């Protein structure tokens, strides 16, 4: 029988933190995320400077419409919730739950990417390619970099689902799931800034 404090400790310290190797990898992943913050920071500054350099192309106000962007936002925010549910299931040793919620997450991610590609394709069809102005170059690159991060995340999630199904909740797989949720939440935070700086300020 374990005492109350011990139970508390085992809840507070999941296996992937207790294992030396895996906890080192988690630290490494946090540091990787800081480099990604700087990467997005650079792209945001480029966009902020280029926002009004529209040349003969459309202004942000003319280009953006709230409907699809709001849908993308809601989908991504939901996916970050389901991603946490997956981690929660893994922490409670429910493999099926972890796999199921992770699958939901990657499907939501895929529909986010689909909507974004549709938005981009619509802009390009209307003749608004990134060649047209510095603003469009900055817009497509900033939002596209986020979208390609989500796409990489989907590929990662697919591999993770396969690994969870074949290997179960090993310490390594728990660490992979944990770093994946870090990555996914990070992309969500980036999107919140994107939504505000690019779309809300653009439409306003």
């Amino acid at each position: 029988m374990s005492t109350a404090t011990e139970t508390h400790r085992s809840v507070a310290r999941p296996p992937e933190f207790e294992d030396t190797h895996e906890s080192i990898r988690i630290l490494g992943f946090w540091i990787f995320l800081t480099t990604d913050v700087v990467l997005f920071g650079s792209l945001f500054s480029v966009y902020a400077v280029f926002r009004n350099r529209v040349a003969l192309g459309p202004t942000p106000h003319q280009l953006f419409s709230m409907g699809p962007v709001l849908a993308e936002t809601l989908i991504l925010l939901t996916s970050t919730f389901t991603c946490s549910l997956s981690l929660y299931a893994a922490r409670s040793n429910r493999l099926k739950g972890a796999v199921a919620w992770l699958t939901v997450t990657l499907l939501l991610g895929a529909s986010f990417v689909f909507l974004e590609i549709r938005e981009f394709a619509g802009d390009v069809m209307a003749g608004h390619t990134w060649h047209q102005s510095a603003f469009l170059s900055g817009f497509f690159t900033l939002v596209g970099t986020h979208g390609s991060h989500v796409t990489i995340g989907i590929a990662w999630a697919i591999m993770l689902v396969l690994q969870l199904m074949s290997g179960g909740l090993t310490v390594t797989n728990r660490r992979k799931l944990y770093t994946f949720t870090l990555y996914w939440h990070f992309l969500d935070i980036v999107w919140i800034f994107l939504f505000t700086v690019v779309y809300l300020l653009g439409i306003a």
Partner: protein
Amino acid sequence: MTMNPWILHLMKRLFPPQVLLPDIIGIDIGLTIAAIAAIVFLTKTKRWGWLWREWITTVDHKKIGIMYLLAALVMLFRGGVDALMIRTQLIAPHQHFMSAQQYDEVFTTHGTVMIFFMAMPMVFALFNAAVPLMIGARDVAFPRLNAISFWLFAFGAILLNISFSIGGSPDAGWMSYPPYSELMFDPGVGENYFLLSLQVAGIGTIATGINFLVTVLRLRAPGMTLTRMPIFAWSALITSSLILFAFPPLTVALGLTMLDRIFGASFFTLGHQGMPMMYANLFWIFGHPEVYILIMPPFGIFSEVVPTFSKKPLFGYEAMVASLLAISILSYGTWVHHFFEMGAGPGVNSFFGLSTMLIAIPTGVKMFNWIFTMWGGRIRITVPMLWQLAFVPTFVVGGATGVMLATVPADYQYHNSYFMIAHFHNVILGGTVFGLLSGLYYWWPKMFGWKLNHRQGVWACLLFVVGFWLTFMPQYFLGFQGMTRRMSSYPPGLGWTALNFWSTIGAYVMGVGFLIMVYNIIWSRIHPDWDTTGDPWDARTLEWSLPSPAPEYNFARIPQVHSRDEWWEMKQEGRTDEVKISEKTVHAIHMPRNTPMPVLLALAFFVGSIGMVFEWFWLAILGGLGVVAALAYGSFANYSEKEISRDTILQTEAQLGRLES
């Protein structure tokens, strides 16, 4: 004559007129012969398997360090030949040794190779060779990632270096400012090579930054608190954190230029309201911290070399750490000093001028600390120490001229003149390269197990240093007299002729110094002076408590650290037996297994990059799929560890005479 037009087109693409110059064809033939000779040698001596098992698939930080070092020396040769070509062109007025176009290509590759493919890998060579050993670790935090970093660097270097014989070299300077670097003014594949090779090597560099940051933070031996850590490990920690914040802006700058050139975006173009200044800002937000990334490790090296050869602990350890930290923070607030003239206004310029001058203070603190460490010490003039002694006056001059350049109104006079060229060679060559060569001579016995001949080393150092002063002192005066950088020739009668002549002579003297260093290495390999003690310099830190070279697992027993300069304290207190093991204390050790994944991943990046350079998108996609496949393989393959058994360790340590009696 009928020739398939498709093949004709391809040949024109791969071999445009600028790669059909006689000297380039000569080099191509030489390289082909050398490659064939290497293949024949490896086949005859049946070493392919050895090469694959021992080197190409290795994840051992010591071997990766050796590969970095050899690659860096080859690149030092290549960049040095570029430098000599530049100086040969400028030896007298109206020289046409090279065309203006080729001159542009040569100064571009000189700068790019020296910064990214010589100095950076040599820094990483010494990090790999020394840092894990001096903090009492068995490897870096992520051994496989370390190999990935190396191979990305190696394939990036190959990519840049094949440009001159296939497709044409980059020619927009090592900063590649738009609009020169844009498609409109610079068609052809040269700039694409520049962008892709730096991008690939840059990914590796970011990975190395993460790796060494985690290594130093998490893998220190018990008892080694941050304040007991050798300064070189501190410099690795701080350099790594600088890399993390400096390289992503470079990634963005290069990436956006690539989108402009290959995919028709309008970031830095003149039309469509693009903004070339944006590139200059992004590039120097990377570029200024980069010069501190290059100088911090030499600061760390000197902080190991000076105490060792003065037989004294380092003077002002805390001040050393504090000044490293101060420099690393200040270095982010100085980037505008690279373009005071581009119209930022007096307020902004004053801020950046002042912040630049402030950096001189912590740097001066370090200078005094090294001098005070020598003060009253028993100084031994070894080759590493000689490089340090050469560094002190050189770097003081370089630093002082740096403060002159930071004075905004005066900078309008100096900017992009030979004064500035002399200044940054003074600090990068006289600081970084002197420091790295000091480290090379210092840790060479630990890396290879034999020492480099002292007499030859002294000659190499003396010639190099004399050549250095002779090359760059005249250039300060050329700058005052109005000679600007990147001139491919100049007329007589401006008072530049004699100064340029002596500068060129100096460059050749440096070249002779380098050749003697190569001779020194080869001679010492043929007549090895084996280091049987593991501690040839009577040094102070933990790496010298190990045999030279260290066994695969480094420490059979992880030491317990009680103080700074732990190995010195062990020797003073007669505790050196602590590093020995006995049957009772030995345990099996787990080490990571070799894996081909890193080299395959980097190869995929290389193939994809070639596709991007020539805009063969099918090849780029193929390379991209290769990257995904390599990553998936890396994720699914059971990245297992192997066990080195107790018996093997006992056997190895017994052979090295490290068993407790």
